[in-house]
């Protein structure tokens, strides 16, 4: 089994192409370790900010047809505590028979301006994480033309270059799908020196309404959409990056729930595949299950590794 799913990502050996994305079962080292043991090749921390954040008041999640809306509010224990959790995770992994020390970690960080991104990245650089992921999906307007950060090629590029300057670790840019010019942003991120792209962050956002009380269900009113129904759009954005000629490694995610979805994501052009909301539908075992489903696909098709799966382009 391991042979066929093993891969190398930016110089780090992963036991599977499956990735735990930022925001799902990743606040504490324990959850991340559990997910690694269950079969994720790479785990991402909750997006970390300078200071701890409590996040939004509840309700913070609501299930909708085909997926889920969440407005966690980027709750996180802060970069310092996050670094400690990664330390504990690496320590626990070193002592774990099943992992035998192999537990690659992607540290997600976010800020609302370049300076903060840089100062957090400087700290993340000294952590035991293998990669640094920049959550660039901030809908706040930060540039002079009134364009939100996530949609500003220039801001995205500036933040990436600035972070690249302060870290030796590979830098992954996590992109928002909620922009008109997605491939341009992806291109700008690539040109600015990102080592990989991670797509997609949550879609929308969307609203759910309680018709008995005529109230938005989420206390934040809107929440980002994830889960099976965002998959077609995630596949399209990955595909379009490839069609636009971007040659950078891509972690593709958005609604991946089973082996078939994962194969689709690889066919769209992803190198690794994130699995987040599916934990809701199939439990943390989803990683083990999708690994098995991927393997059975490979066997049925007579392929000897997931890398030999054809892309549609």
């Amino acid at each position, binding site marked *: 089994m391991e042979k066929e799913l093993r891969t190398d990502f930016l110089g780090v050996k992963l036991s599977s192409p499956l990735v735990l994305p930022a*925001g799902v*079962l990743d606040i504490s080292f*324990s959850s991340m370790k*559990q997910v690694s043991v269950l079969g994720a090749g790479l785990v991402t921390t909750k997006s970390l900010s300078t200071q701890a954040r409590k996040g939004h008041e509840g309700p913070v*999640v609501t299930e909708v047809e085909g997926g889920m809306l969440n407005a966690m509010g980027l709750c996180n224990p*802060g970069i310092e*505590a996050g670094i400690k959790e990664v330390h504990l995770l690496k320590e*626990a992994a070193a002592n774990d028979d099943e992992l035998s020390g192999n537990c690659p970690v992607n540290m997600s960080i976010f800020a609302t301006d370049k300076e903060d991104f840089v100062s957090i990245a400087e700290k993340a650089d000294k952590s035991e994480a293998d990669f640094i992921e920049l959550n660039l999906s901030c809908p706040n307007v930060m540039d002079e033309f009134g364009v939100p950060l996530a949609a500003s090629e220039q801001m995205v590029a500036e933040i990436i270059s600035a972070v690249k300057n302060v870290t030796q670790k590979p830098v992954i840019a996590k992109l928002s799908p909620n922009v008109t010019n997605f491939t341009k942003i992806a291109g700008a991120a690539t040109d600015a020196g990102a080592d990989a792209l991670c797509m997609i962050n949550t879609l929308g956002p969307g609203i759910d309404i309680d018709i008995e009380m005529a109230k938005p269900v989420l206390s934040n009113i809107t929440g980002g959409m994830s889960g099976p129904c965002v998959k077609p759009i995630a596949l399209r954005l990955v595909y379009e990056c490839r069609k636009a000629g971007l040659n950078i490694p891509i972690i593709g995610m958005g609604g991946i729930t089973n082996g078939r979805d994962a194969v689709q994501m690889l066919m769209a052009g992803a190198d690794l595949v994130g699995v987040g909301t599916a934990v809701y*539908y199939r439990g943390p075992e989803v990683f083990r299950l999708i690994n098995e489903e991927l393997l059975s696909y490979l066997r049925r098709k007579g392929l000897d590794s997931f890398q030999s799966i054809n892309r549609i382009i």
Partner: protein
Amino acid sequence: MIKDKRYTLPIAEIKEETTEVRTFCFNVNLDVEAGQFIMLTDFNGGEKPFSISNYESTSDGKLLSVTIKKIGNFTSRLFEMFKGDLVSIRGAYGSSFFIPGKDNSANEEYHCLPKDFKPVLCGGGFGLPPLYLLARHLIDAGVPSSNIRVIAAGRNEEALLFEERFNMLGVSYIGAAENLNNSGHNRFLGTAAEALASFDTDFNFVYASGPDLMMKSLIPFIPNGVEYQFLFERYMKCAIGICGSCATDPSGIRICKEGPALWRTQVEKLQDFGVYKRTASGNIESFTNRLAGKK
């Protein structure tokens, strides 16, 4: 197909238990097991977990109860609401208490009711109410009510909830507190652990529910080989097992999914039990600091 259905409905009834504790009832048909909880919101900022303290059939269909202590913003808002006001709930969530003969047992030997099943139900503060539903289900499953003993632990007489209700079930109810004006019938002057110790191991199962420290204090008095289940509280956000907020260390057991009812083998592995909890941000807050902060 939505798995996680939300029910927005009027409060069917409010019962004042003490000045600080009220039971809120709803007419709603859920899949409920003792030990499980619901998430409750008034869509006014905040959605909080509450254990189900009762679930019974009435002439208006099923009636679900949660028993709530006024503690902070959210619970205070609830205490300003009236019968008929709308709130919204989802659930029931999480693992449930073991009922002999039911399939939710991790322990083969209990799959059919042992003749001598003699449990102690030990609840502290608002940990007690879910034990009421448990007691009812145990009796429904055939456990003689005379075999069931309840220790209600609290700060003082006022904190000793549900005495009448448990008595109606015919189970023995011992109120344990360190400050009691009268230490008469069914009262024990001391902690929950001391009350348990006073039973002199004349029990073969312990259910406990309440603050970590209370539950932890029981452990020395539970003999080796006696199974127990503790009902845990951790910070809940999603309640559907995805956000990781309620995960315990070191193996990531989620209190909203694998919990809140954990078995002895699970509890014995916890490193945070009675030591620390995580807050809304995921930061670690140790119990000693918490206590210190409160004093």
